[in-house]
């Protein structure tokens, strides 16, 4: 029996704009199981980010039911269940890589700076994740000295550093060139296998979604509702060669049809 991590039932979200109500999310219902890799695929501006923010406990005025392991999203956020990775890596320019990755532990320790003992422990922990994402040797570099791919790696290391159960990724590779993105995809897959985390991944790249996911949630535009949830079922470990796979191609065709690209 698979353990359900995130449960979303009849989720609605709307806000007032220019005297009319804008329906952003309409009757969204789905479950995420422990250790699953789920992609949310849909056209730009359809409310994917809003959905992720609600799940992550950053937006509260929604209707419907969202449970994260029997808690509300806000409570889960305070318990540090989520690691966020945004499209923009949001590294602080005045902090080097190591100190950017130490930010979550500094914040958790309260208002001040870390005590010496916990500082050493956090540094050791941060360095471990810097190695894991392949940024060894760049601990002292500042964000403006890093390439786009390296910035994404640092942002992922920061999110992983406090060992959250769920990673919420909002088009994390959207700003990268095709080559770097494919490489980051493969590395993310390895990281996910190593860390046993549950990943919710927003993207508008069909091939990226099929390559990475166990299931893909295809969303419709304005208001955003679920068109279909597709079970991918391609065996793991996967590599780039699966893109030639018959299953891959038929999924790709189907998704294109759903979105209306054919």
């Amino acid at each position: 029996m698979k353990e359900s991590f995130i449960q979303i039932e009849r989720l609605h979200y709307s806000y007032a704009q220019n005297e009319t109500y804008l329906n952003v999310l309409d009757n969204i219902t789905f479950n995420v199981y422990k250790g699953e890799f789920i992609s949310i695929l849909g056209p730009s501006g359809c409310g994917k980010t809003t959905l992720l923010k609600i799940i992550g406990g950053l937006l509260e005025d929604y209707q419907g039911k969202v449970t994260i392991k029997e808690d509300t999203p806000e409570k889960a956020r305070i318990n540090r269940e989520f690691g966020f990775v945004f499209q923009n890596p949001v590294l602080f320019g005045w902090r080097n890589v190591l100190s950017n990755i130490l930010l979550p532990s500094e914040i958790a320790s309260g208002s001040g700076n870390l005590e010496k003992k916990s500082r050493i422990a956090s540094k050791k922990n941060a360095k471990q994740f810097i190695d894991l994402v392949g940024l060894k040797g760049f601990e002292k570099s500042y964000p403006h000295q890093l390439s786009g791919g390296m910035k994404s790696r640092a942002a992922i290391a920061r999110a992983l550093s406090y060992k959250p159960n769920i990673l919420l990724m909002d088009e994390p590779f959207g700003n990268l060139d095709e080559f770097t993105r494919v490489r980051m995809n493969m590395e993310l897959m390895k990281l996910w296998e190593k860390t046993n985390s549950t990943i919710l991944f927003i993207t508008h790249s069909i091939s990226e979604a099929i390559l990475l996911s166990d299931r893909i949630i295809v969303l419709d535009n304005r208001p955003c509702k679920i068109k279909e949830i597709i079970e991918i079922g391609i065996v793991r470990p996967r590599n780039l060669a699966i893109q030639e796979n018959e299953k891959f191609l038929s999924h790709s065709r189907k998704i294109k049809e759903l979105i209306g690209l054919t």
Partner: protein
Amino acid sequence: MSRKSVYIKIRKILFLRILFPPVLTLVGVLVIWETICHSFNVPEYLFPAPTIIYYTFFHNINSLLTDTAVTLYEALVGFIIANIVSIITAVGFCHSKILERSLYPYAIAIKSIPVIAIAPLLVLWFGYGIFGKILMSAIISFFPLVVNATVGLKSVDPDAIDLMRSLSASKRQILFKLRFPNALPYIFSALKISSTLSVVGAIVGEMTGAQKGIGFVILTSTYNIDTPLLFSAIIAASIGGILFFGLIVIIEQYVNNKYGFKNSSKEV
């Protein structure tokens, strides 16, 4: 070529290309000035020759130093007061919408008014002492600072705020770990403007009524038609202002190096 000789060569080129042209300009202007004064017999009270100003300057060096010190002291104290008050005000604006809506428009409006016009009022209220001058330079440096600091504190990347919220950071942590470092380039840009303005404020304050300071020397030497002394006072005031400005630039560079800012100074 060894590394050392390359280094020396680079220094030579730097000296020739960067330092040499402005120095040459200065020497040229001084020579022409001196020649005109001598060949046309320009009266000293109207336009003294550089050599005469040089002589007067060093003849009065002690009193000039004291007066410059007084002015710089007033400017510095006023500047520091303006800093503290403006940053507290900016933090207030950043956290309270009502406070911002009711006061910020006036801060912008007053920023573009010549506050110097209120100098006589300050003499009326606080007399000829040093306090009125400190207040004058505080007022004149306050507005650029408060406007820049507010913009700097507020212009944070919304994603960065989301990141801090996702880590459940408190308002205080968001202020100290995100907003302040983000505002630093804006604040430094205002500090550079305000450092020179604060000297202007102090001098204007002294010119409206004082017993000492560079503004006082400027005023008395004008009354006495002691133009060489007037020029000396102007030079002393300029050197003081440049030193103050330079101090801020040095602190800025230090902060930039320490915190890895690539290029700072954001204008508003």
